[in-house]
């Protein structure tokens, strides 16, 4: 087991390195980073020169890469291209907010999807199953920004009609709130729901399919033939096997949540990673963008690792790889 984990960790390192190189080259290739800046009318040549100087922009490509990697470790991603503001504090702040959002959404999605999926499988073709399936299909078909907007309209109208705030439709917190935790939850509720919906739709189908396959397997038949109670058959024999691919899917999907967060944070005006990326893309400031990509990659790679480890724990066949 230990060697398995070790191997997985070692494997991740070159992946990380290659990813960083890819990110760097790709962003740099897509055009002169100073394009935007040059277009600002009042910027003088000397300002531009100093920017070039400061960021080593006239050095060869590979050297720039090295400088950048250096800056990642020593200066915390360095500073923005345009305003020379340090990147790290911003990233820390927005990452913290986004992680709250994503983790809450993931937990919600996993729990609900597991329950819905298992019940749908065990009661195949029942009304519950049909309703769940309909919900899933709708979930697949609705773009998250649309869902977010609908939720926004709905709860805004509820507020306007009844003068009570159930959930907030924008921002992360209100000034002067009594209970910080409750206030934060009220603000995050709608974004979390938006993010979770797609996950629930997707994963519940997945769990259902997985359970159905497992429930019809030979070893479940053996368990029944031994006289094991139906509930134990489902909870112990079937679930344990069905969870294996599910767990992997969850961990792998974590990366996609960062993408989903982009939209959600935009609609609900949340100061998170998503908004950070969009803003910096808007101003074509490459350093924050690269920092964003790097941070996200690291998180995703770490999660892939976690998924591998859990998978190894759950499925004894893999451990002896």
């Amino acid at each position, binding site marked *: 087991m230990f060697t398995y984990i070790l191997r997985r960790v070692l494997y991740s390192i070159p992946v990380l390195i290659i990813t960083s190189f890819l990110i760097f080259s790709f962003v740099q290739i897509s055009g002169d980073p100073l394009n935007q800046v040059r277009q600002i009318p009042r910027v003088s040549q000397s300002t531009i020169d100093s920017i070039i100087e400061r960021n080593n922009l006239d050095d060869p490509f590979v050297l720039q890469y090295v400088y950048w990697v250096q800056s990642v470790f020593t200066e915390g991603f360095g500073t923005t291209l345009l305003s020379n503001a340090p990147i790290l504090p911003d990233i820390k702040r927005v990452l913290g907010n986004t992680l709250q959002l994503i983790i809450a959404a993931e937990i919600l999605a996993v729990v609900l999807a597991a329950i819905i999926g298992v019940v749908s499988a065990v009661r195949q073709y029942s009304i519950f199953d049909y309703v769940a399936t309909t919900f899933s299909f709708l979930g697949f078909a609705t773009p998250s920004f649309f869902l977010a907007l609908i939720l926004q309209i709905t709860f805004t109208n509820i507020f306007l009609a009844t003068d009570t705030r159930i959930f907030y439709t924008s921002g992360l917190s209100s000034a002067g709130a009594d209970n910080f935790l409750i206030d934060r939850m009220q603000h995050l509720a709608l974004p979390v729901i938006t993010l979770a919906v797609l996950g629930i739709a997707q994963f519940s189908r997945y769990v259902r399919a997985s359970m159905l396959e497992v429930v019809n*397997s*030979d*070893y479940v*038949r*053996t*368990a*029944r*033939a*031994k*006289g*094991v*109670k*139906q509930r134990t058959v489902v909870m112990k*024999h079937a679930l*344990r*096997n069905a969870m*294996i691919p599910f767990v992997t899917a969850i961990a792998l999907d974590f990366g996609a949540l960062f993408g989903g967060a982009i939209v959600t944070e935009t609609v609900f005006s949340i100061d998170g990673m998503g908004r950070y990326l969009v803003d910096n893309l808007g101003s074509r400031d490459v350093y924050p963008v690269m920092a964003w990509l790097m941070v996200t990659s690291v998180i995703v790679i770490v999660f892939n690792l976690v998924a591998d480890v859990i998978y190894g724990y*759950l*499925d*004894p*066949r893999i451990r002896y790889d």
Partner: protein
Amino acid sequence: MPEPVLSIRDLVVDFGTEDGVVHAVDGVSYDIHPGETLGVVGESGSGKSVTVMSILGLIPQPPGRIVRGEAFFKGVDLLKVNKRELREIRGKDIAMIFQDPMTSLNPVFTVGDQIAEAMEVHDSSLNDDRLRAKAIELLELVGVPNAQRRVDQYPHEYSGGMRQRAMIAMSIANQPSLLIADEPTTALDVTIQAQILEVMKTAQRETNAATIMITHDLGIIAEMADRVVVMYAGHVVEVGDVGTIFHRPRHPYTLGLMNSLPRLEVDERWLKPIPGQPPSMINLPPGCPFHPRCELFQGREACRTERPPLDPIESQHHRAACHFKHELKNETSKFAQEGAAS
């Protein structure tokens, strides 16, 4: 003869499919007596597995449906008891061994755990140590080497033959009175097959259980069975003891089966298969299910319209379902002709 351990009477099981209703088991009756080995022979689709699975409540309903019938086990009709009672009998009084040991064992639990589960489900008083000790004992009984170590291993660490041994161990854990083996060697190499059959004989000796051996392999029947039930298209077509069935079969299907087997010692120019194809189970021909392929049919009305009853031939112990079985009176299969030992 003593009272049968299991007595199946007129069992009818249907399956609803996209294309229509399949009468997988269509009026099947047979008995099995204590201590005997009953071989149930038939092609895929003959209903031999569905019969026993439905008695044990292992057929999903829907799409399956037990239309009618009775299955008396030690005086209790298994088709009428409630789920809980059936569950108590499964794995304890009646145990089953399945075909494919690769997939029949749960990959995420150790072999020892799974054997222990068979015991623990029926007797919760057993503690973990006792269960483990018993599991090791069973593994040794079925010939798994190094049982002390193997008991904590996972199924994927066992070879195919060993897995099947483990399955057998699991099935006899509770000293069942009836053992049902559904094609236990089909998925295994031929050399391993022989070993497993030996293990089964050991298991039978240990438990004195009656055994239903379901297979399509006549060689296994010859080796293991005391009596034989021949099934075709959901019907029982012939019942008798093994010698009679091999030497003097009285149903044209059985005769055809025997004659289609190649003989190693004799030089045959052509193999003699049974002509035609097995029937579509949705559109079964009326009357005798075998008549489209039967030598004796010859266009006769009775075969086409009336379903032949399973009637005795000279004694209750040998019965065949054929309108014209008497025409086979003087026929003997090629096994008898060569004077093959029973």
